[in-house]
């Protein structure tokens, strides 16, 4: 199947998507890259961003937070930490989480706890960033 790309998106909890598609745009740590059939083998880490799945003129968007992408002759595999179809993303949920985490950062008793809380906060901030950019 040289004219279609075999694409798989898996998160630890389940296999989210397995399909033959035309092209996938992947948010790599060093920049977005499009993967089409017969792409050269690549392994890349992901940043928080949007995966765009192009197939037969349609574009499906999925939010992905961290993980890996592997391209090999068999196709593209994305191992995401968290992944959700953009339509199912509940922005209010993340906003509430951000508020919680900001409080956590303020309430942190020692440096260790603070660093952990800040890391969790930054993660949510990056998610909201992506969502805002997408909505704009």
């Amino acid at each position, binding site marked *: 199947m040289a004219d279609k790309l075999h694409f798989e998106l898996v998160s630890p909890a389940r*296999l989210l998507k397995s399909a033959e598609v035309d092209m996938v745009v992947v948010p790599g740590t060093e920049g977005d890259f499009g993967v089409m059939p017969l792409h050269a083998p690549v*392994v890349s880490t992901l940043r928080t961003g949007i995966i765009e799945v192009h197939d037969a003129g349609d574009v499906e968007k999925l939010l992905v937070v961290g993980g890996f992408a592997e391209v090999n002759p068999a196709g593209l595999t994305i191992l995401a930490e968290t992944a959700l179809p953009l339509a199912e993303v509940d922005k209010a949920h993340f906003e509430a989480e951000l508020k919680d985490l900001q409080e956590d950062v303020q309430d942190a008793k020692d440096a260790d706890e603070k660093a952990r809380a800040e890391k969790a906060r930054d993660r949510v901030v990056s998610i909201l960033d992506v969502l805002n950019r997408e909505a704009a």
Partner: protein
Amino acid sequence: MANLKDLRNRIASVTSTQKITKAMKMVSASKLKRAQEAAEAARPYAERMENVLSSLASSMKGQAGGPALLAGTGSDQRHLVVVATSERGLCGGFNTNIVKAAKAKIHSLVRDGKDVTIVTIGKKGRAVLRREFANKMIEHFDLSHVKNLRFDDATPISAWLIEKYEAGEFDVCTLFFAKFVNVLTQEVTPLQLIPASINEESGTDLGDASYEYEPDEKDILEELLPRNIAVQLFRALLENAASEQGSRMTAMDNATRNAGEMIDSLRTTYNRSRQAVITNELIEIISGAEAL
């Protein structure tokens, strides 16, 4: 011979026990279904992860100075055995089998002169192991508050393992858990978590091409390896949960059947002795009447 009232009481108590075991069987049957689905849903991720790792590992082969999580510390003197069991009892041979396999391994390691430390997940295995190896147990993870296991429940455990490994407290880490085969069969499996056990066969053959890495090989491996440990652990815990429910279901099914047999035999005894009492009374009345 036991008197009639005693027999009646026993029948009543066995009947209520049977009701309990029957209910437990149904509960674990429905829980099993969910646990099994979760375990099966987690398989693709773990498998793909293994594929990616194998591809990476085979392309890294021959290069010196790979990350310690992959290459090991160069020694296998100090072993850490992680034993994952359930939080609840009454599940047949489930915990016993895991503990038995772990014990055999620990004994053989000790015989070979290795240093062994033990970490337990789940309190059932901990209680048994503590009797024999109290001085070797260094940590216990309690998952009794967890209803539906999520990936976030496995990450603290894997983070702890990696931290201890990087602090140089052990060289090899093996995880014992029961792999879910089907409702009747659970297979106790030892899985080497650190250094990562890589199946060279499962990687995709690239032919002449080789991977490009973004950012670079080392960074990716450094992120991927800890992640792999968390994923393998998560998967093992899910398998364990499914096995536990399967094992409990079978055990409770047997218990229900045994209770049924017991009730039958008690009822026969009860009816016989009731008849004997009646016959006795009749004989007394008749012989009393004859004596007049």
